[in-house]
């Protein structure tokens, strides 16, 4: 894996390589090189499978991290490409033409994070949520508890226990 | 024979006996199935309770006239089929209205209920109903074929279309039954029997999880009650025909009860062993196995 990263480094701006496991590596990429890199990895390096495409909300840095996780079946290698995009103007480039399954991931990201992928098929249609009008719920500034309390009626008398304290009390009543 | 008013009472009595018999028998069959599977099974009177429950439902809907008439057609088909066939051989009381027509009448009247039901289900506007009807009709066309050939073969064998005469010819010894005098024909007809009893492997028409039980998807309350009644009555009426044609008929109610049960169990036994066919598979099955047997039957009579 290191070889691959080293081989690609002269031509691509790759940063911050993390060798998580023997078969799992993460590396930062830039948006303008993403497409070329993905194509090269798919067609030349045998990373034929898009495992997932997901996002992380780095609200403090004002960024979304898109993670393209791709897999080389023959070499049993997984490579995660991290791409940071601006959180306020969240827009990614669609890769549904490279992996058709990406369209589904992109629809999900559009709905849950509000990241736009212009050109992706059916990206603006409802995906999981129905009739959702609030902000995308996976954004970290969306407070699900507050939303839940403001939306759904609660039953009176519900108690909440700290699991740690409760279990300790139950299992060792004497202390 | 001509019509007398007392026939109506006789017919009502036949109907009463057969419906109750059917209620108990179908419950019993389910219970047997449960016991084989290691379960206790439903109470033997469960059919009655379900019937009462359905009649007791308070809110009903209707999709239109044909929807309303569908179950009526269905039950009329079942009752009519029973009444056009003599139930007990040699009994004046249980000849029913068999003077209205012969075997052919019974053969074609089977479709009366099917047609009405299909129309009613169609008017409900539910696509699953239509899909179920499409499957059911497609399958039954192939399934009925061996029966048609079988009927033709035994009418040739006995040189009559009159059911009573066919039963009469089988009296005397068990070896006079068509089952033994003409086994090929019986086998051919039993293909059709198994194929039209709505049991596995030929029950894709109902397919509960795929097209929620097909044609009757929209039916409920008293509509469903009528159809339930038919569902216990119609198979018995159909078995009666098979019994009369191939298994020597019945000369008393006890014989009737045993034979109907035994014949009915054929489809049950096959059903618990074999998994479900798709429609085109069952069509091919009947063309590949049922049809040749049927052809052999008519050629060897």
């Amino acid at each position, binding site marked *: 894996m290191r070889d691959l990263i080293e081989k690609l480094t002269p031509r691509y701006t790759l940063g911050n390589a993390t060798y998580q496991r023997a078969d799992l590596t993460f590396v930062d990429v830039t948006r303008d090189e993403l497409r070329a890199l993905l194509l090269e990895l798919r067609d030349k390096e045998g990373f034929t499978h898009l495992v997932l495409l997901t996002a992380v909300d780095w609200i403090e840095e004002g960024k979304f991290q898109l993670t393209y996780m791709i897999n080389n079946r023959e070499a049993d290698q997984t490579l995660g490409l991290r791409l940071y995009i601006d959180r306020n103007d969240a827009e990614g480039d669609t890769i549904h033409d490279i992996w058709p399954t990406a369209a589904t991931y992109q629809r999900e990201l559009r709905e849950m994070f509000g990241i736009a992928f212009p050109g992706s098929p059916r990206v603006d249609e409802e995906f*999981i*949520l*129905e*009739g*959702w*009008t*609030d*902000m995308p*719920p996976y954004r970290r500034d*969306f*407070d*699900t*508890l*507050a*939303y*839940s*309390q*403001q*939306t*759904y*009626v*609660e*039953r009176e008398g*519900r108690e*909440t226990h*700290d699991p740690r304290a409760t279990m300790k009390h139950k299992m060792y009543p004497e202390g | 024979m001509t019509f007398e008013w007392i026939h109506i009472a006789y017919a009502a009595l036949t109907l009463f006996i057969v419906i109750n018999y059917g209620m108990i028998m179908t419950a019993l069959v389910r219970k047997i199935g*449960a016991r084989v*599977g*290691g*379960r*206790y*099974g*439903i*109470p033997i009177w*469960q059919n009655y*309770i*379900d019937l*009462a*429950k359905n009649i*007791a*439902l*308070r*809110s*009903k*809907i209707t999709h239109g006239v044909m929807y309303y008439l569908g179950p009526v057609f269905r039950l009329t088909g079942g009752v009519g089929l029973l009444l056009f066939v003599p139930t007990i051989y040699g009994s004046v009381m249980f000849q029913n209205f068999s003077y209205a027509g012969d075997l052919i009448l019974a053969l074609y009247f089977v479709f009366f209920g099917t047609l009405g039901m299909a129309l009613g289900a169609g008017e409900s506007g539910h696509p699953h109903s239509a899909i179920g009807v499409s499957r059911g009709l497609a399958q039954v066309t192939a399934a009925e074929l061996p029966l048609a050939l079988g009927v033709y073969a035994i009418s040739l064998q006995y040189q009559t279309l009159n059911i009573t005469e066919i039963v009469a010819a089988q009296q005397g010894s068990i070896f006079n039954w068509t089952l033994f005098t003409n086994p090929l024909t019986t086998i051919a007809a039993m293909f059709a029997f198994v194929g039209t009893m709505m049991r596995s492997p030929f029950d894709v028409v109902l397919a*509960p*999880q795929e097209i*929620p*039980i097909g044609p*009757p*998807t*929209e*039916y*409920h*309350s008293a509509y*469903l009650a009528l159809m339930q009644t038919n569902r216990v009555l119609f198979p018995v009426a159909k078995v009666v025909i098979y019994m009369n044609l191939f298994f020597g008929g019945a000369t008393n109610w006890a014989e009737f009860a045993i034979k109907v049960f035994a014949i009915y169990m054929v489809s049950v036994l096959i059903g618990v062993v074999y998994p479900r066919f798709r429609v085109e598979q069952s069509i091919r099955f009947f063309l590949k196995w049922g049809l040749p047997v049927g052809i052999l039957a008519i050629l060897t009579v």
Partner: protein
Amino acid sequence: MKDLDKNFKKDTETEFPLREEMRPRKVTTPDGQVIDIDPLADYFCQEAPKVHRKSYSAIVEGFYNWARANSLWILGFGTGCGAIEMRPLMTPRFDAYRYGIQWRPTPRQANLLVISGYLSVKTLKRAIRAYEQMPQPKFVVGLGSCTINGGMYWDSYNTIKKLDEYLPVDLYIAGCMPRPEALLAGFMELKKIIRKGEAEGANKYAENFDWYKANQKSVIKDWDMPDYSW
């Protein structure tokens, strides 16, 4: 414990637009005439549900209730993870059939709607439809703590926390998940309620129809169906 953002205010301004297929439209007939179609009025029955009285005779009603209790037809609609606990009921170990309990695939033929676990808003919509399409009298059983108070989904942005706000529940079976034995016990309890003639949830629903509808619509923002799904 989770921190609560005091400043978070849910968006109550934005209306969800009526879906396109439900909007009134103009259509040209084969004769060239232009006609108006209002899908909601044209394609759906607009009647409100009715309150159905019991039989005049107490004996008849008693018999009916006995039949209803001994012929419980459950709608085979698994709304949440609890559906998995229903399956063993059909097996030799528990064999619910001996109590007259059966599963039906269509709401038209079912009397008992078992809400088997958490109910997301999206599923709630379907559950309401299924419930309304069942013929009266009909019963609702809530399965597991999620239906009672939200359970582990107490802070979910998308799951209701109190089922009886939206549907008239006859019985709750507690647990997460309740085991099949608990289910059986629950059904036996339900039978008793029915026998006593107290399982009148459907009438309650019809009587308090506006209240139920208001609750339902407060969580289902894209209400694009008739008020009562016949």
